[in-house]
């Protein structure tokens, strides 16, 4: 049995551990060659912002983990367009090398295409 899985990433990085632990779960899944896609929605889009420098707050960069995604075969990242707009973030601020960012107008339609959704 195999299930197409969507990781729904809604947590901002650093303030809570959820963003990091979500990406770790996605990487584990991708390493086992399970089909897994990511949808960044709400504050989750802040995970993708460039120029993160969390050393002074004693944390490791989460973007380093995100950059590992393409190496594990996750090459397409879905991003909720209205979440971006609400936060005044431009698409060029959230690029991940080796991955294609696809803006999603109707996240509900994307979600409906999966058998399993893991919320983070």
């Amino acid at each position, binding site marked *: 049995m195999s299930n197409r899985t969507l990781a729904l990433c809604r947590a901002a990085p650093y303030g809570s551990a959820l963003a990091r632990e979500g990406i770790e779960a996605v990487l584990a899944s991708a390493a086992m060659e399970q089909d897994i896609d990511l949808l960044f*929605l709400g504050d989750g889009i802040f995970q993708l912002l460039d120029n993160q420098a969390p050393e002074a707050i004693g944390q490791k960069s989460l973007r380093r983990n995100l950059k590992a995604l393409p190496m594990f075969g996750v090459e397409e990242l879905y991003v909720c367009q209205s979440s971006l707009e609400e936060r005044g973030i431009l698409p060029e601020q959230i690029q991940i090398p080796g991955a294609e960012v696809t803006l999603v107008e109707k996240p509900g339609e994307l979600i409906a295409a999966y058998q399993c959704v893991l919320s983070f």
Partner: protein
Amino acid sequence: MTLHIVSKSPFSCQALHDCLQSLVEGDALLLIEDGVYALQHQALQSLQETRIYCLTADSEARGLQTSSAPDSVEIIDDTRWVQLCTEHNPIVSWFR
């Protein structure tokens, strides 16, 4: 069809807002834990096309008057919760 489970208060958290942005016609919405405070929130009034469910254990715990909730809300027990989960796929939790 997707089952959306919202467990946080719409008055203090964006969970319901984000969920409603991700609703598709035919999806169902289940309110649990602090999510049941949505019964007091106007966002539910606008959801004409969505089947809305609310866990009775959680609304009673909080002393919420379900009689003032919109007609479209069905108050359900845990058995029905399980059944909703068998009837829908995927199941999406909105807990923050």
